[in-house]
């Protein structure tokens, strides 16, 4: 029945609709995901008159199918005949925007927002805006929730009468009976404020903002904090004090920790939005309180912002504010009872040194770093070590190295392998900052010990760590310090350790160069081809394949090839396979 001439009635619609109605959900889902193919086969005319009505009618389906449908329809403009027909897509999307499942609804709203841009201003008023109004006054909360996300996309492009209606609808939803709708409205408040004229921001948005910020449910109040950032950005400085600050102050002291957490979490954005003057007078004390909050969750969120907050303070009296207001709180947090708080602080505290300069760092911050380096919680120590570079720039790492070493050693031997893994990853960075001498003296043994760790992930990380070290310190250093030890492991009684030798050789050969590879590594590899354990033997084959490109052709022909041929006739199937792979 297939024709080639692009005729619009190529396939009978019944056949295609049968596919969309298949009893098997999976098949139905597959068909919906290829809805564009079906629409293309039907042509724009029949897609509009037959396919879309069918889709609108059969909206009761599995949520997964509906999700796929909602997504597809957002990209359907061309398939219904371009922007002048785009409004045909509204009925099915309207139904999808009212279903219970949040994921489906959100996707429908996303698609509606997308196609709203493809509407002409006239179509927007004739077709789109009435849809928004219908959703906004729907019976069940789901449609009203969806409406909240659509106001801001149509507002800028409609006439002022319609604009007034839209504002009215938004106001109504902000004081909706159900908290679900109020949450949706609160979360879109900032976005909506951005498209409003400034006078309406003051007369409409501010009262809504104030009301939502003192809602009976904390889940609504905390969303108002997010909106606060956008609203404060929109208003001129002189209005902030009267219109926004009372609400923000109240939020920072809200009785629910969730709201205070939100303030702490958004603190940097809030700080930028309200500007330096208000920051100095209001936000500094508020921030101090959050750092001292009775809920650990809030303290941790605030601790995370310490560096950013200090960085963004007005420069003229930044140092004074930090030294007299922030630092005392930070000092207390260093010995907080909650490890998440300490670890949040440890991840940013080093950044303060660049802001405060050398002398202050040595006098005030260094003792804190040292305390945190000795913290009982490994995550705290790790966070300090991972940010050493900031301090290095200001005071040099030597100041710390005496305390650093025991901390590193302890982390290197931590019982949790993820902690060991994390410290290995900082080794190349540390090596660069501490220098080759210090490294050889203190850290080299650790790096070698990791090679025989009982967790494979650690051995693997240790191997790639060696490669990075060689890249940093050069081939000569490798030849003197690492290679002999690595090759020595080839005689270890544990076959896993012998394999580690091979893995190291794989990783190091390129960085070490042809000379070392041919003269020192190759003989060891070749010797291991006689190992009793098959795993070692086939890894020999793999290694030879890997280091082949580094070797000269002479060695390849005279030494490597015979060994591989021997392995190719090994009694073990896997050894044979990998030897053959290597030969070819």
């Amino acid at each position: 029945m297939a024709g080639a001439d692009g005729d619009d009635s190529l396939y009978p619609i019944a056949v295609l609709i049968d596919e969309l109605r298949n009893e098997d959900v999976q098949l139905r889902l597959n068909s919906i995901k290829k809805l564009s193919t079906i629409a293309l086969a039907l042509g724009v005319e029949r897609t509009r008159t037959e396919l879309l009505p069918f889709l609108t009618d059969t909206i009761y389906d599995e949520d997964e199918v509906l999700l796929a449908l909602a997504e597809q329809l957002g990209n359907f403009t061309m398939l219904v005949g371009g922007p002048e027909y785009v409004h045909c897509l509204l009925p099915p999307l309207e139904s999808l925007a009212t279903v219970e499942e949040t994921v489906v609804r959100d996707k429908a709203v996303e698609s509606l927002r997308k196609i709203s841009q493809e509407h002409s201003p006239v179509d927007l008023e004739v077709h789109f805006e009435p849809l928004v109004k219908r959703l906004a006054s729907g019976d069940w909360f789901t449609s009203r929730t969806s409406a909240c996300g659509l106001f801001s996309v149509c507002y800028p492009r409609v006439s002022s009468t319609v604009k007034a209606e839209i504002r009215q609808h938004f106001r109504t939803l902000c004081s909706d009976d159900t908290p679900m709708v109020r949450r949706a409205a609160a979360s879109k408040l900032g976005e909506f404020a951005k498209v409003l004229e400034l006078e309406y921001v003051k007369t409409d948005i501010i009262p809504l903002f104030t009301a939502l910020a003192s809602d009976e449910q904390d889940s609504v109040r905390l969303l108002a904090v997010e909106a606060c950032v956008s609203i404060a950005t929109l208003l001129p400085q002189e209005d902030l004090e009267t219109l926004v600050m009372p609400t923000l102050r109240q939020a920072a002291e809200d009785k629910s920790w969730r709201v205070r957490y939100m303030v702490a979490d958004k603190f940097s954005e809030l700080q930028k939005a309200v500007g330096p003057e208000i920051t100095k007078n209001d936000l500094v004390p508020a921030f101090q309180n959050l750092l001292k909050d009775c809920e650990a969750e809030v303290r941790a969120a605030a601790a995370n912002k310490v560096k950013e907050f200090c960085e963004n303070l007005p420069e003229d009296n930044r140092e004074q504010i930090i030294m007299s207001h922030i630092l005392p709180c930070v000092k207390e947090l260093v010995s907080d009872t909650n490890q998440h708080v300490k670890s949040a602080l440890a991840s940013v505290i080093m950044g303060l040194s660049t802001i405060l300069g050398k002398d202050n760092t040595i006098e005030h911050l260094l003792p804190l770093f040292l305390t945190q380096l000795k913290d009982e919680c490994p995550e705290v120590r790790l966070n300090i070590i991972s940010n050493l570079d900031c301090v290095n720039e200001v005071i040099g790492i030597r100041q710390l190295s005496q305390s650093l070493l025991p901390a590193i050693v302890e982390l290197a031997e931590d019982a949790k392998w993820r902690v060991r893994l994390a410290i290995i990853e900082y080794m190349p960075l540390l090596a660069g900052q501490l220098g080759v001498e210090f490294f050889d003296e203190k850290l080299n043994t650790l790096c070698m010990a990791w090679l025989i760790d009982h967790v494979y992930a650690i051995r693997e990380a240790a191997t790639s760590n060696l490669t990075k070290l060689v890249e940093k310190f050069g081939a000569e250093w490798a030849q003197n310090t690492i290679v002999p030890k690595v090759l020595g492991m080839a005689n270890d009684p544990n076959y896993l350790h012998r394999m580690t030798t091979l893995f190291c050789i794989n990783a190091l050969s390129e960085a070490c160069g042809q000379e070392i590879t041919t003269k020192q590594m190759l003989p060891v590899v070749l010797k291991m081809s006689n190992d009793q354990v098959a795993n070692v033997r086939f890894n020999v084959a793999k290694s030879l394949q890997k280091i082949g490109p580094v070797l000269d052709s002479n060695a390849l022909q005279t030494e490597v090839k015979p060994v591989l041929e021997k392995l190719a006739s090994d009694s073990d199937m896997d050894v044979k396979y990998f030897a053959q792979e290597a030969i070819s």
Partner: protein
Amino acid sequence: MEGEDQGSPIFIRFDSIVKGTDGPGEPRGDERGLGVEGLQAPSTPAASRLVQCNEPDAPVAELHDLFCKKLQQCCVLFDFLDCVADLKGKEIKRAALNELVESVATSRGVLIEPLYPEAIKMISVNIFRTLPPSENPEFDPEEDEPTLEASWPHLQLVYEFFLRFLESPDFQPSMAKRYIDQKFVLQLLELFDSEDPREREYLKTILHRVYGKLLGLRAYIRKQINNIFLRFIYETEHFNGVAELLEILGSIINGFALPLKAEHKQFLVRVLIPLHTAKSLSIFHAQLAYCVVQFMEKDATVTEYIIRGLLKYWPKTCTQKEVMFLGEIEEILDVIEPSQFIRIQEPLFKQIAACISSPHFQVAERALYFWNNEYILSLIEENCQVILPLVFATLYRVSKEHWNQTIVSLIYNVLKTFMEMNSKLFDDLTASYKVEKQKEMKRERERTDLWRGLEEYQERRMQMLTEAARNQRNLQERGERGDPLNPSSPQTAQSDQPEPKPSGASTGAGESAT
């Protein structure tokens, strides 16, 4: 550390409060002893006198005054995170609460109107608080130990007092409703998220009493429970008190008047059924299934909504939940009306067939157990003509393929039952099994062909569209530059005409390709 700083203004020393209640001019004894003694000395005779308060000469006013003062004293909060802080004060408050519980439970005539606001205030101050963040963010109620409420020694007594207060024969709903209002109930409902099961147990009983006694709040309570559930289902997936709230609802549903109001049906379809999608279903499934069955027993016409709803939300990957769903289906079938059964048998038995062919033997086993239920078996027998063709192919295939011997023998039993029910139909189906299989394969081939054709067609259309777009673009460019048409980047594509660069093709065709 900062608990100390904040502590001092909030946690006023208890004995200083007690001192404050003494008349200003009265002589004070030993500074230390006064608090304890001052509180207890008058209370002991009071409690004994309360019992006999129907004596005409009992100084009732004095008792009320004392009761009221104690309520006010119990509004002082203590820091229980610091377990050694202010031990003496804590002990005094505990004793006072005990006395309040005792007197509200055993004596008549204590609850006079002026005490209602004081009692509700004391309860509010003590129980309403923002619940702390869970110490374990991935708290799994099935696996982990809950974090218990530190202030329980006091909190329990406050709850106990509240409960006795509500249950007291003197309790007057008409007076209470002024103080136990919507805002109060909303805060009470939020506490159901407490991780402490002891607290939720008290809340359950208390809310039930409130629902029972304060008729004006009923609709509001139902609406707020709806909101909590909807938020749980669609927003947070976290709320500790779902099981407790469902338990209350179970008895509320039991009391619904017939015919069911639209509001109640909506609650069933839009809240109770979607609750089945929750990840933590196992924690409250028993209570949920009870509610669902209650609805059916009230009004059989909701059966179809329920079954179709469950089928819509049938678990796709979680076999543990699938077993729970099957259990609930059996509970439903146990009480289903035959006329309703006929309406849903087709989709239902398709799902049961799918369960029987599950590679997880517990799912298959649970489904096959339906045939051991006599009532269900009788329903199946009555509708054998419809049901057998739905499940036959699955039974036949799985009996030959399943890895688990128990399942295989269960299936043989089921097949045997069917054979005895209707041997003619059984033989027909056996005979046509292979033909049906072949028909199915043919349909499958047709589908593949159809899609291949469609996709080839799409490819051709896309090419045409890209070409059209390119031509238009070239025309435009030519117009702008005044150049003659000159294909600038010939490509090796199948078409004999050069195609535009990928970036130029996006105008129309790129959209529909996604």
